């Protein structure tokens, strides 16, 4: 398959380059070149490279996404407290400014690399790759990548992670999945956080949140939890155990574990 002659043009786009098609030749006789390549193919390429790194070192990489303040760092702190003795955990923190989150993680005795993006509203695969240079992947079982708090932009950039986890705190609306379909469609697990506050909130219904997620054709588990109540984390910790096993099995078979939804470029371009 090549990128220049149009042999990779999908059925839906054939009319554009067929003889006499509106883009085959211009009035001035300029050359029209068919490409059909993801706009983010460079990022997708770097993401595939990251994923190979993770796999060759047996590291399970998880991408945490949510709006700001939904409890990503708090969930990581509680997870480290619960699993720190069983798994070697490391964290890549993405924020516009400050080392605050990385420092919180380090206080738990876990290595953390802070990426400050300046004005960029998301992490991309190149930023994560640069951060990986500061970590010894041989010393890590689970790498959490805490993305920039934002329900829009992070969803469009593959980082090389194996799974996407999207947090939805119960102080937000239960219609968030409908409002941010790109983000929630990409989730392999949805964590409903801060559920200890449910008794004082009369406008958040976990079932409605799940229903809105299902309307995106997403069958991902929806787990209710609170970082302040360790006993509510049981299903989440079990899911992590299962994914570590799942990843090991895949690596042993020479296969790669990928998020349920791949950015468009991955399946277009054979990088998936």
């Amino acid at each position, binding site marked *: 398959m090549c990128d220049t002659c149009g042999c990779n043009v999908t059925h839906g786009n054939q009319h554009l380059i067929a003889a006499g098609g509106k*883009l085959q030749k211009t009035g001035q006789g300029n*050359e*029209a070149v068919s490409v059909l390549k993801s706009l983010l193919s*460079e*990022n997708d390429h770097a993401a595939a490279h990251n994923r190979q790194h993770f796999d060759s070192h047996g590291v399970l990489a998880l991408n945490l996404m949510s709006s700001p303040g939904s409890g990503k760092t708090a969930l990581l702190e509680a997870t480290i407290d619960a699993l720190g003795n069983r798994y070697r955990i490391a964290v890549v923190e993405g924020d516009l400014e400050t080392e605050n989150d990385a420092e919180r993680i380090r206080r738990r005795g876990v290595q953390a690399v802070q990426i400050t993006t300046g004005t960029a509203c998301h992490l991309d695969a190149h930023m994560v790759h640069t951060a990986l240079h500061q970590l010894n992947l041989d010393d890590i079982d689970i790498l959490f990548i805490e993305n920039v708090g934002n329900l829009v932009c992070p969803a469009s950039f593959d980082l090389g992670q194996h799974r996407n986890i999207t947090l939805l705190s119960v102080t937000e609306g239960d219609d968030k999945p409908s409002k941010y379909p790109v983000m929630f469609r990409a989730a392999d697990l949805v964590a409903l956080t801060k559920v200890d506050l449910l008794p004082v909130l009369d406008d958040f219904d976990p079932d409605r949140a799940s229903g809105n997620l299902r309307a*995106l054709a997403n069958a991902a588990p929806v787990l209710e939890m609170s970082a302040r109540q360790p006993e509510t984390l049981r299903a989440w910790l079990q899911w992590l155990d299962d994914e570590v096993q799942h990843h090991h099995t895949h690596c042993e078979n020479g296969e790669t574990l990928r998020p349920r939804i791949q950015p468009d470029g991955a399946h277009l371009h054979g990088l998936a």
Partner: protein
Amino acid sequence: MHELSVCQALIAQLEELAHREMAQRVERVLVGVGPLSGVEPQLLQRAYPLAAAGTLAQDSELAIEDRPVRVHCPQCGEDSDASASRLLCAHCGNWRTSLLSGDELILIQVEFIREKDYV
């Protein structure tokens, strides 16, 4: 506002393609964007001239083809139109559908100008 990042990645691809095609300028670019790509066509349109300034794509036209959201239902076998926030089968209501189109973010075609075109 990740549309600027997307445009910068697009411009990098255009420069690489132009180099390979030995073209001097980009005249027109056609991209396909679906609502589930997470990229807003209007913002892409506005960011494009900023990213293109000073490159061989400066002053080129960005054409955007909106891609429809379509799903396939494995239960009843039918395909149907859907909206970004409701990917249900329009025929039987099943939610376990698979996406046929609507998440595209692709560079479909580029029109170049070569030196000889000026002669």
